[in-house]
């Protein structure tokens, strides 16, 4: 009898232990198990506890997927794979010409790299990279939730139900302070849609859809789509630092970005012609911070943060034409053809770079570039 009680007690203790250690994440973030109908992966970014946000422009939606990859790692060597496109092509059983790497994102908890690949017929694939090993991330029967990016002006939402959604491509995504931020490009109108969506997603879709103007040199005012962005804090105030398809670098105070508002940004730098910004991250070394920005036809730019912070004039202050002499420390790094960029930790970046020998390499940078 004693033995039976002992076994029962052990069993109960075991159950209690399991109950406390396998906390169901569904409850916390409102994720339910199923298979998300993801049509395309334009952008990836991580939220809390290994939740991955997948930006799907073709569905005009953002999916939150629990990767269950949330074991914290203090320090990581990052990822390093030479000829990554050839390796991915072989794993998928096709040729390099048939695949495109859409985005990479570092899981800030586990430091593993996630990589979105698109096949030439449009099929999206999600891969995970640990060190030099690639594996598939299954999106079948996973805890997830979805938020449709609606475009309807609020006062006419009923009329437009069922009509096509205008987002054709999600140009960038970020997560900060419990909010997913999404910049979208439309294949129809030329404008900027930037949304700030609270996470966990709610049915009420409390989201801000913004149109943003920026003034060129205080004379011409234009509207333009954001290509890439990051959030930052300058002297205790939070900002959205955005780069446009026409490459000016623009600062917006985050507290002014509210639903339906038209916010005038302040151009802090122009990055030259024939160029499209690709990715931005903020790195820190000692007491100094730097904005690192990858470009379609320029090397990686490094902007000293102190100079951005010093640009605290009025929003309509014309920018001095030659930004180099205007004091913005703007350095072209010896890093060319970097097509993807994300932050591993404060001093290390994960880069996807087309080397001069033609090889497409994923590698991790050290402090040398800061």
């Amino acid at each position: 009898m004693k033995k039976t009680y002992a076994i029962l007690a052990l069993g109960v203790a075991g159950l209690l232990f399991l109950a406390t250690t396998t906390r169901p994440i569904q409850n916390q973030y409102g994720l339910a198990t199923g298979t998300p109908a993801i049509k395309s992966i334009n952008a990836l970014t991580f939220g809390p506890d290994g939740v991955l946000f997948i930006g799907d422009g073709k569905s005009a939606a953002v999916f939150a997927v629990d990767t269950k990859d949330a074991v914290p790692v203090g320090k990581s060597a990052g990822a390093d794979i030479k000829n990554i496109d050839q390796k991915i092509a072989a794993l998928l059983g096709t040729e390099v010409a048939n695949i495109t790497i859409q985005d990479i994102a570092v899981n800030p908890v586990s430091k593993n790299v996630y990589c979105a690949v698109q096949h030439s017929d449009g099929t999206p694939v999600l891969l995970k990279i640990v060190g030099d090993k690639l594996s598939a991330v299954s999106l079948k029967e996973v805890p997830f939730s979805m938020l449709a990016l609606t475009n309807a002006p609020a006062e006419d939402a009923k009329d437009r139900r069922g009509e096509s959604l205008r987002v054709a491509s999600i140009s960038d995504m970020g997560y900060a302070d419990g909010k997913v931020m999404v910049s979208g490009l439309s294949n129809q109108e030329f404008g900027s849609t930037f949304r700030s969506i609270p996470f966990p997603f709610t049915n009420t879709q409390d989201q801000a859809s913004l149109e943003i103007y920026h003034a060129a040199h205080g004379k011409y005012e234009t509207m333009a789509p954001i290509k890439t962005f990051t959030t930052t804090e300058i002297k205790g105030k939070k900002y959205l630092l955005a780069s446009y398809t026409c490459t000016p670098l623009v600062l917006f105070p985050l507290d002014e970005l509210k639903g339906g508002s038209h916010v005038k940004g302040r151009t802090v730098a122009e990055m030259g012609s024939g160029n499209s910004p690709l990715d931005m991250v903020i790195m820190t070394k000692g007491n100094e911070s730097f904005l690192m920005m990858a470009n379609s036809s320029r090397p990686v730019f490094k902007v000293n943060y102190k100079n951005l912070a010093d640009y605290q004039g009025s929003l309509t202050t014309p920018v001095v034409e030659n930004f180099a002499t205007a004091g913005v420390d703007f350095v072209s790094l010896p890093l060319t053809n970097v097509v993807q960029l994300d932050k591993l930790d404060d001093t290390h970046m994960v880069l996807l770079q087309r080397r001069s020998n033609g090889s497409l390499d994923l590698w991790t940078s050290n402090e040398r570039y800061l």
Partner: protein
Amino acid sequence: MSGIYKQCGYVLIRLCIGCNLIFFVSCQQATDDAGIRIRWADKRATGLLIPRQFAPAVSTDSLSQQLIVRLAGNETTMLGQFQLVDDNILFEPLIPLTRGLHYTVWVRDKRLGEIIIPGLNADDKPTLLAIYPTQDSLPENLLKIYMHFSRPMREGQSPKYVAVLKNRTDTLPGVFLDLQPELWNADRTLLTLWLDPGRIKRDLQPNKQLGTPLQTGVSYQVVVSANWPDAQGATLGRGTTKAFVTVPRDSLSPDPHQWAIQPPKQGSIDPLKITFGEPLDYSLLTETLHIIDEEGRTLAGKWQPVNEERSGVFDPAMPWKAGPYRLKIESRLEDLAGNNLNRPFDRDITRKNTSPTTRPFVDILFRVK
């Protein structure tokens, strides 16, 4: 054995065509010694069917540990899932198998067989149906070009296959913004190309350094290569050239109050025609116009741009009733230079009389008699 497979594929295809299915799954007889077959869905090779008897020693639980599929001549094990389907082991890779490539199937280190995925028929090609704007005289600050294809195309290819020629001789670099990912509609049949907005916008560095992509009074040609591949890997097969000349800059917002509305007769299902007085954006024209009846209901029907996008016609689903109607226009409607109903593409803020508005719609009233 092979005869049975052939028969099976034939009967399935016949059945599927008979049922008028868009997506069909069939099996196809392979050229392989081990009887490996291809599983097709919607013209895509989505998997390999390996007869169970060719790997009898492999238990159901250990299929993915023991069976391996590789690209022929490559040592990498392909990612994918194995499962038992009737008497076959089905291998489903993460993406469809590529036409023209050879694949090998292995049980541990023993090669079971090889299969080739057949290419598309030589005449199975997509076509470029149209390039918009249709007009042959376009403003210097033209912002967008649309290309409409007959079937889904491969993304990210336009920089390789689209060129702009000036005066039929010089190829112009940097006319279009190199945007990755490109702007395709959901089924990848309509591509939007932006002429570099940084060069069109007055006073930005790209505009100052390189000038506008197009200049007034010059003849241009948009040349589309025949080698542009579609989602299946088939190429256009035929090149297309669109010639146009440029006229001065358009800096004015479209003004719906200047449009001419030709109302139809009551009781008819005649189209309603609206003449804009200038060409408007092809893609927005079909989505931003709405007809509202007296009770506030949106009329069912279809909008079509006509007369080189200078007019739009609305074909109603039901006959017109007599009474007042409202043409509701979304303010995001643009002309060819990206000027919308609320604001021009770029606005000189030193001029006082050009304040942008934020109204979401503009309403125009008309009556059907």
